[in-house]
């Protein structure tokens, strides 16, 4: 028998209490229960990266995590990062460099890129590629995405110094 489980977590800083079936994954919980549809569902087995979100500050695949596993955690989605302004410079660089076309991969790509950027490492295209290697894009050919992340990294370094 499978029965709903009570969970309590923070999503983009807001407390959420819910009853969820064990089989519900975090991506579907965010999209269908909380209407946070910025998190995209592509392959549903951890390969494409479109569903990348943050749990307790670290990026994870939300299709490979059950909603019940997020009990007591803090989840941040693309809506949270976007609304707080944390990635406004990165989003602007994506627009400037045409680093998106259909936009399906973009939320996951931004999550993964920001994860690399906030480590504060020097701009290095090879490192950026490695960090984004788990995120598929079928439009851009990746060059423009790497350009946008590199540009943002340089600008942020400039601001710090």
């Amino acid at each position, binding site marked *: *028998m*499978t*029965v709903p*489980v009570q969970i309590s977590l923070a999503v983009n800083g807001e407390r959420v209490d819910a009853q969820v*079936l*064990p*089989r519900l*994954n975090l991506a*579907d919980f965010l999209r269908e229960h909380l209407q946070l549809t910025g998190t995209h569902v592509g392959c*549903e*087995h*951890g390969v494409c*990266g479109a569903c*990348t979100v943050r749990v307790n500050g*670290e*990026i*994870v*695949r939300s*299709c*490979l*995590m*059950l909603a*019940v*596993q997020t*009990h007591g955690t803090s989840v941040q989605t693309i809506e949270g990062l976007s609304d707080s302004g944390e990635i406004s410079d990165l989003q602007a660089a994506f627009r400037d460099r045409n680093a998106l076309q259909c936009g399906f991969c973009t939320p996951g790509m931004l999550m*993964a890129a920001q*994860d690399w950027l906030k480590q504060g490492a020097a701009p290095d295209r090879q490192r950026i590629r*490695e*960090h984004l*290697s*788990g*995120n598929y894009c079928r439009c851009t050919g990746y060059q423009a995405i790497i350009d946008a992340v590199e540009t943002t990294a340089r600008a942020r370094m400039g601001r710090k110094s």
Partner: protein
Amino acid sequence: MKASAFSYARATSVGNALELLAAHGDKAKVLSGGQSLMPAMNLRLISPELIVDIGELAELRGIAVAGNVVKIGALTRHVDLLRSPEVAAHAPLLTEATAHIAHPAIRNRGTIGGSLAHADPASELPACMVALNATIIVRGQDGERRIAAEDFFTGIYETALSARELLVAVELPVARKNSAHFFHEFARRHGDYAVVGLAAQAIMAGDSFADLRLVFFAAADRPVLARAANKLVDVTITPATLAGASMALGEQLDPLDDQQASASMRRHLAKVLMVRCVSLLLGRADLNAGGPV
């Protein structure tokens, strides 16, 4: 696809997890980081009736060095291994190998215990455990068993672990003086499943090997400790000895054919890796001049 319906239990202690496993046997599956289990469930390759989530068992997490042993708890994540100064100092092979496991978002969730219990023949950690002579510690309601890594992996996704036992930790001997290691895998892209790979741990004695453990992965149904390495220990290595070892390796390996590579391509690449490894560890570029025979 989505996983089919299952019941869920969040284990409150190792004892509690073992009770649940004893009661449900192979109808239950242990959920650790979920980075292999969840894809298999989403693809409906498996449909367990009960998921036993051990994610909250803090006692299974962490890396400790005591005497000549590095003990790594089953719930230690790949990212923890990668960042651990203890692992870098005492088992650098493991640090290097972990960087090849999938991608950052996967490494933030995947655990060493999960990877070993899952026993994918293409994964890096099982091969490292065999190369490093690790002991795998499993617990059941009747107590603990300590299993040599070489005996632990028994086939594709098959191990010596029973459905009523929990993998709790691994123990690695601290790398000895004069140790050296080599890790390389061929993959379509960084982070993809290896086409074939090699994890090697050696003890150097001047210009030769005092010990050499060459463990190939994605080269058979489980990690393979190459018997050919015996031909390379305590001898001065010439192109001829290496060619002999290369031939012996080819005879021992029984790789699988799949959409990534044919068996003969895997056998060839394994030989390439062995030659590169020996040449690099000995600092002998001449041994790698002609490629494998």
